């Protein structure tokens, strides 16, 4: 569970996060959307204690991030950075994944098992050098290293940016699978289709303030909020908005088909 309580944060003088409160419950899948520079990455770093709030509180699994060591919070929290290169520091993929596991599992056999499992899941050759791979591939290595840790909470900063459609879908399916088994997910994304398809809960950030916080169907069909956050809605909700008031709260293809069928019958 992640909870922000009237959180404020500034890197220097101008506030970057301004009185933000929200809760992401256990097992929830929240998408954090907003324009460039809105403060999304800052929110993610506040979540796991890399940054500490200047006022208000951030509570992670019942622990106040201000009074708990970041390295301790990291044991149960998986964090994927916008830039995967800062995380990768070993010469082979397998070593990289095993290094990340050292801080989570004391048992070496368990570590090897976990590593083997994700290597197979991602179809990686464990002996390859991460630095000779493409950016998209390194992004997947960073994610593999995170999933191997079996985190209870996953904080993902733009996990699919720069990946092709197939990679993107594969990665999202893996994340959704973990979410289905009870892992809490907070994901930053600019992709409204992904938000539409996978998230249950949407947080809209604009210039450090929380503009929207609610169900996907509610937020994704709220044109005012989406415009303020300079995102355009996904295709189905966009179409529904054009059809007018009879189509409010339509956000999935199934709902759309059902409404149209009803309209034709009437």
């Amino acid at each position: 569970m992640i909870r922000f309580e009237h959180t404020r944060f500034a890197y220097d003088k101008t506030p970057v996060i301004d009185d933000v409160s929200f809760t992401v419950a256990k097992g929830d899948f929240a998408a954090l959307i907003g324009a460039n520079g809105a403060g999304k990455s800052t929110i993610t770093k506040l979540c796991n204690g890399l940054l500490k709030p200047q006022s208000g509180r951030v509570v992670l699994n019942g622990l106040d991030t201000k009074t708990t060591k970041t390295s301790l919070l990291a044991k149960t929290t998986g964090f994927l950075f916008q830039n995967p290169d800062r995380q990768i520091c070993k010469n082979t993929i397998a070593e990289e994944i095993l290094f990340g596991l050292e801080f989570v599992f004391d048992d070496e056999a368990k570590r090897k098992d976990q590593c083997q499992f994700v290597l197979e899941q991602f179809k990686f050759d464990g002996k390859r050098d991460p630095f000779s791979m493409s950016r998209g591939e390194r992004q997947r290595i960073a994610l593999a290293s995170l999933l191997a840790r079996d985190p209870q909470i996953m904080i993902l900063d733009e996990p699919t940016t720069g990946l092709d459609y197939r990679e993107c879908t594969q990665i999202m399916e893996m994340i959704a699978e973990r979410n289905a088994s009870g892992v809490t997910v907070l994901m930053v994304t600019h992709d409204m289709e992904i938000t539409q398809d996978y998230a249950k809960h949407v947080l809209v950030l604009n210039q450090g303030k929380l503009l929207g916080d609610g169900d996907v169907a509610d937020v994704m069909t709220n044109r005012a909020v989406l415009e303020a956050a300079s995102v355009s809605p996904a295709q189905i909700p966009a179409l529904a908005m054009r059809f007018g008031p009879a189509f409010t709260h339509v956000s999935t293809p199934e709902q759309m088909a059902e409404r149209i069928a009803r309209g034709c019958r009437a």
Partner: protein
Amino acid sequence: MMAGFLDYIPGTSFLHRLNPLTKLLFSLILCVSCFVTDLHLFILGLILLNLALGFYSGIARRSLRILSALIKFSIVLFIVQVLVIHDGTALFYLTKSMPITDLGVSFSLLFVMRLIAATMPLTLMLSVTQMSDLSNVLVEKLGIPFRYTFALTTAIRFIPVFAAEMGGIVEAQTARGVAFDTKNIFKKLTLLLPLCVPLLISSVKRIESGAISAELRGFNLRKRGSGYKQYGIQGIDILALAVVVVIFVLGILF
């Protein structure tokens, strides 16, 4: 944080208006002056002079920050030095085999004071000089090929960039559970070493893309006469150099 320690602070003070070459010589001579003397008081004087120059050029806050960072670092160095030097007469004993000696204290003090007095003029100079001016004047007045001065000034400009990059890497590893939030400095250092790999990789990448983009913009065509800005020597340059040479000579005499 290291970032921002070395970048240019605009101003119109006496120091700002000096010829970049004068600034370079001025700071180098100040730097060397603290190695030609063994007198603690003289070096203390140099440190105070640096501080005064910093205040006078309107970069007081930067000077104080640098000084306090250097002092923190020096305290650690001083303690290590005092513990390992056993020559001279013992002032007192920490344990039976670990004397603190008068020579040890005096030498260690001199050592850290020199460190401070030698670092300050260089940071001061970099704070009041624009990198492009420094590199232009080295090409124009000393005839050093542009590619070398460019390498030098780029290296200096990249220090804060690397510091920021290192900060990012430390952040990324902390998020994985590496205990960087420990108070133990030695433990922190051993944790830091393996992280030099991503730093190296990202630096090489940055340098490579910088080099390619410079080349695409005709970097190799640049000659000694290519700079359009003129850097004249004025009265204040002579004055500044005269003062610093006097300090240097005084250093040798004492």
